[in-house]
């Protein structure tokens, strides 16, 4: 693993074709105020990164390094204190809550460590949630959900509730859910953290498959062997990027 200088683009392999830029972070900062005092805690101290179409990126770092904050910003769950975040062709760093919700439902797919399926909904209903908030008609949602559940191999479980599935199966449903809106970015937050190694490997295989199809995946992890399977590894420490390398 090589260490690259901060904020310089990672070295390209020879013959690299410039691809479409999906997301650009420009000196992004995030500062948390401590309630009831004037003390401010900087979580991100000016992050500039560019993500191209089809990249498979791991964001690493110890706890407190700012990787969760970065993922929240990338996922439009939070707004930066300073800097700009361009997603697709729109600057989303200053959008209001409703517009951010819209972006989340149309352009982003989330995969969480703890799966985060809604317990009272069936597998299919869980997958349809992002489309529901886009206002997609029920029949279209159902068709799309069924076509995606086949890809993660759970078509025999479509009417089950999350509690009736194993962790690996739940995460596969969550991945299918993240794919249902054809997102620009798939954001995964420690997707193997709650799974045993074998199941984790299976989930990573699915991600690898998605990467081959050309999906763009950003994955937060603190496990080196998980990061090793990604094409590009960004390491954060104390709110700054300390390394950004391409795996070969």
């Amino acid at each position: 693993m090589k260490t690259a200088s901060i904020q310089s683009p990672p070295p390209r392999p020879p013959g690299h074709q410039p691809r479409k830029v999906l997301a650009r972070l420009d000196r992004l900062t995030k500062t948390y105020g401590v309630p009831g005092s004037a003390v401010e805690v900087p979580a991100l101290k000016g992050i500039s990164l560019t993500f191209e179409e089809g990249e498979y990126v791991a964001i690493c770092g110890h706890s407190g390094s700012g990787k969760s904050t970065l993922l929240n910003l990338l996922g439009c769950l939070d707004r930066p204190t300073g800097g700009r975040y361009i997603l697709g062709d729109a600057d989303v760093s200053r959008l209001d809550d409703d517009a951010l919700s819209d972006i989340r439902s149309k352009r982003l797919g989330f995969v969480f460590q703890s799966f985060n399926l809604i317990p009272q909904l069936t597998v299919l209903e869980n997958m349809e949630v992002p489309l529901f908030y886009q206002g997609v008609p029920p029949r279209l949602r159902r068709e799309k959900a069924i076509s995606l559940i086949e890809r993660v191999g759970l078509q025999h479980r479509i009417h089950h509730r999350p509690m009736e599935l194993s962790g690996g199966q739940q995460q596969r449903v969550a991945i299918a859910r993240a794919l249902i809106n054809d997102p620009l970015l798939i954001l995964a937050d420690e997707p193997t953290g709650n799974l045993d190694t074998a199941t984790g490997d299976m989930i990573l295989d699915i991600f690898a498959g998605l990467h081959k199809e050309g999906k763009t995946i950003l994955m937060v992890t603190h496990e080196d062997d998980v990061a090793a399977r990604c094409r590009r590894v960004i390491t954060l420490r104390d709110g700054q990027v300390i390394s950004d390398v391409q795996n070969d």
Partner: protein
Amino acid sequence: MLTTMYISHAFETTRLGLKNIYLHKLRSFLTALGIICGVAAVICMLSIGEGASEAELALIRLLGTNNIILTSTKPEETSATEVRSWLLEYGLTRADLQRIRGTIPNVVRVVPLREVAYEAIYGTTQFPATIVGTEPALFNTINLTIASGRPLLPVDQAQASQVCVIGDEVRARLFAYEDPIGRTLIVNAPRSGYVPFKVVGVLSRVETAGTPAKGVSERNLNTDVFIPLSTADHRYGDLKFKVRSGSREMSKCTFSDLYVQVDELENVIPVSQMLQQLLAHGHSKKDYLVKVPLERLKIAEAQKRQRQITLGCIAGISLLVGGIGIMNIMLATVTERTREIGIRRALGAKRRDITFQFLVEALILSSVGGAIGVATGTAGAFLITWWVEWPTIIHAWTILISAGLALAVGIFFGIYPAATAARLDPIEALRHA
């Protein structure tokens, strides 16, 4: 297009709400129970208030709001000389009748009534009916309907015929197993003895929401036997004898009642004041009463309104308690489902989507509770009538008001928890255990 999208969205949110409520059947039922009790209480209370008032109002309407009723009363015996006088003379006189007919404007007609006897006999059965001499016009003055036969006619009055029209109670007691029309009953009075009268008509039962018709004139029309006034004049005169535990009592009371019918409703009060003044001049003692059904109607309506408000408030409080119950449970639900809220927000739900979702759940609870409450309250009102024998009346507006109140309570107490849910920070909510 957009509207259909919203409708489908609302429909699915409702389905989701129903599902969530169904998943927590017991809790949802207990939550709705507050609303059920509240709505049932509102309906029961209002129906009791309505029923109690209706009995009185119906009687007043029967007596006619255009009428003024003058009634003779025995004066209080003040001086010692009067106690010894062998003939008690009191009440409304022919002179009063003449003066009213001659001087008071806006009076359509004055119908005199005179009680002449207190016992009717048929075969071996006797019944303490009140035998009343009156003019045929009575039947048009108060809203009496004839169940069978005919009313008294001017020809009866002109010929002083020995015919009578009987009240429903008299029919039931004396003619339980036969048609009274054409039969002859005997009227017994101390001095005149047994006088036969042919029954020509029977009045419909005067019934007002369960209670016998006793009201403004304190006259129970069901136990009356009406005969022509001219017949009463010929047969009995003005003097009245009563034999009471061995002693004879004799009194002279020309008319027990005068029914004064006024042409227009707005003239009723002025005419009643004129009558007061007119009678005050002719009578040294206060041996008459002026009763105005219209005034009683107004008082009764005011009382009814007051009663409705009181009962409504009491019931409203229980509805309020139900609403607080909903708010309590919804707040607990929001806490319990914080993570779900976070997931939904991350997957693209706007704040208003979350607000809507929880508001819909509160509304489902309150409207289902309201519907069950309407059913329970209606059943409760019937039970009250059946068991305690209180008259109850359920109007359509009672149901509309109570159901509307339930919805209003649902919205009012649902908004705060829903807003709380929508205000949650998605990141915090996702982290929630």
